[in-house]
């Protein structure tokens, strides 16, 4: 049984490594990720939001829903710790 598991892990790892061969190079300007929305953010950030820091404008404006979700996740984590760890009514 151990050997089957080891073979399965090696096969899956080999397949994943084989998949990375098709990935674009690091920082490749012609990769799909650099061609679609990134140039628009780079060109229009200061014009549209007045924020010189591109990271902030993407985080808080263009991807505002995402950050709202992250904040809610942190809030939920705090509430979960509170409910689990605190003793009520004593």
């Amino acid at each position, binding site marked *: 049984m151990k050997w089957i598991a080891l073979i399965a892990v090696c096969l899956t790892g080999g397949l994943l490594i084989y998949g990375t061969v098709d990935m674009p190079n690091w920082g490749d300007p012609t990769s799909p990720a650099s061609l679609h929305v990134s140039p628009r953010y780079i060109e229009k950030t200061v*014009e*549209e*939001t*007045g*924020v*010189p*820091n591109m*990271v*902030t*404008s993407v*985080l*808080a*404006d263009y991807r*505002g*829903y995402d*950050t*709202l979700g*992250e*904040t*809610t996740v*942190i*809030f939920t*984590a*705090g*509430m979960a*710790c*509170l409910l689990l*760890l*605190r*003793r009520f009514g004593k």
Partner: protein
Amino acid sequence: MITHFYDVIIQTVCRLLIPFIQVYGLYVIAHGHSSPGGGFQGGVILGASFILLCLSHDLQEMRKRLTRRTILIFCSLGVTIYAGIGFVCLLLGGNYLDYGRLHRILPVDSVAARSLGIFGIEVGVGITVMAVMVSIFLDLASEEKVREG
């Protein structure tokens, strides 16, 4: 709870250091527009300053400054600020979280309103992160013995 155990050097150094840490945290939140930083990072620095207060003094000292009730209110206040700014944009006729619409109630143009809206939600994120960090630390450190403060 252990009291009078802490070294006077540690207490004095932390007492001097904490205000500067907090000012730096506020700077990181407010300066997220033009330098690395923002709500998450600044909130963590603010929360760490309160945790340093807990570690160098004791939890009673902490409770004089921030009660559990205040921390809980801060936790939800940050998310409320964030979602509330989104709803204000909705009421002003834009999309949810479309800060450009805030120029109808603020005396600035659309682009500056967008910048101010980003600042507002960074403040909300910072408040929530700070309060949640302190809340989790107090829950873990107090061995369920902290009375309602």
